[in-house]
């Protein structure tokens, strides 16, 4: 379980997070929605320790992440980055098996490669992709490789940062479906940030809307459409008129 309370983070005068409270139950999939620049990525990066919050606490299974031993803590996480963030200096299989080739989870090279090929197959890629370099792959394939890398070490918690951005609607649908399947199959806790509503409906158990530095609305995805919150309604319907300013 991830328990975030009173999280604040400012970059100079720009107060991005102004008291975020959010609980994500183990084994559930929570999607955080919100406009561009509302701090969705900052929130994920705070949990991972990539960005240091100004105040507030983040607990993972009751343990404060700021106090946790970094390696053991990070070993519980997998993350799919928006642009894939694949290491372009190494072939695909080494990207996927990165964690298995070094550090505390190190395995023999042949075993790591086998696991990488298996994970690639899981995300719908054939073994011949394994020896290609990321630059040789299409955007959709890079996303799949990123997904394979995120799940390679069987993490307890997986973060997805805008998993469908830059993909065509069909490829976006395929990635959404894959994410849903994998999360269910692994029993992992998933946190996704997106502003793609089709993603929300495909992936989420629960939805949280971040606006104005706080969680504006939070609830099950089924209640999202009937919720009585003008901010949420405007966002879901993509309407230019409403309480959220169109020019930010």
């Amino acid at each position, binding site marked *: 379980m991830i328990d975030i309370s009173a999280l604040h983070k400012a970059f100079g005068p720009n107060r991005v997070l102004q008291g975020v409270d959010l609980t994500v139950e183990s084994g559930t999939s929570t999607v955080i929605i919100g406009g561009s620049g509302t701090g969705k990525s900052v929130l994920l990066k705070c949990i*991972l*320790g990539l960005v240091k919050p100004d105040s507030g606490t983040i607990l993972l299974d009751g343990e404060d992440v700021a106090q946790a031993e970094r390696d053991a803590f990070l070993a519980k996480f997998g*993350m799919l980055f928006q642009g894939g*963030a694949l*290491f*372009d200096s190494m072939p695909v299989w080494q990207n996927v098996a990165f*964690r298995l080739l070094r*550090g505390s*989870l190190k395995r023999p090279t042949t075993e790591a490669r086998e696991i990488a090929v298996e994970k690639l197959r899981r995300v719908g890629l054939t073994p011949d992709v394994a020896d290609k370099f990321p630059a040789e792959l299409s955007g959709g394939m890079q996303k799949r490789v990123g997904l394979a890398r995120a799940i390679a070490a069987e993490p307890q918690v997986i973060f997805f940062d805008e998993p469908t951005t830059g993909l065509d609607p069909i490829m976006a649908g395929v990635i959404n479906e894959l994410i849903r399947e994998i999360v269910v199959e692994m029993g992992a806790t998933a946190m996704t940030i997106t502003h793609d509503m089709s993603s929300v409906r495909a992936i989420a158990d629960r939805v949280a809307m971040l606006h104005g530095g706080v969680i504006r609305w939070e609830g099950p995805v089924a209640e999202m459409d009937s919720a009585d919150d003008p901010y949420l309604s405007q966002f879901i319907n993509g309407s230019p008129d409403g309480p959220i300013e169109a020019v930010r």
Partner: protein
Amino acid sequence: MTLTAPLAALGRSTLALLASIGRVAIYAAQLMRHMLTPPWYPRELLVQILQIGWLSLPVVGLTALFTGGALALQIYAGGSRFNAETVVPSIVAIGIARELGPVLGGLMVAGRVAAAIAAEIGTMKVTEQIDALVTLSTNPMKYLTVPRVLAATLTLPILVAVGDSIGIFGGYLVGTTRLGFNPANYLHNTADFLETWDVVSGLIKGAVFGFIVALMGCYHGMNSGRGARGVGKATTNAVVSASILILAANYLLTGLFFTS
């Protein structure tokens, strides 16, 4: 207000300069700490030795060859004013080993390597690859910076040694083919007047310059701004700061080594 404006601007830029010196110093201190504590990445170190050392050989070799040749011509022209043309071999050797080998080698490597490191790490930063490294339980300082700085510090003295030999050979070529020196005498003079310390001091300078080059490349890459413009700026800053620091460090080291 208007009277104090120039003073305020001066103060601001002085403070900014001091702050960046402080940041580099903290970065270097962290680097040292990570260098001494595991995990280490020997494979990365080998790759960097190849990238930084081996692939810089042509650049450093050619620079040394032409510099040695030009130096021989200049010393011959200067020496002939007071009938001291015979000093050409020894002055070429001493000049190359003490100063020109390490400084020009360092500057050429700064252009090639500091730029490449800053551009690579800067691009990794911008495309979230550095964040990805962290989430994969790998410390970017240990995985990216330590191998590069170690590789440059270890290989630059070797590059300087090769450059010294090629530079002296450049002087020899010009001396024997254009200036009428007897080949055997030229070599004899070179060997007789060149002392071990002349060469060793140059190699020590090489190690210091290698450290500076990779440190600046990594520091500016890690602190790169967003987008192509940010990476471009980081690359420029890396080359400029590495070059200036090399020249400043060279002056300090020369003062330390050769004045009592």
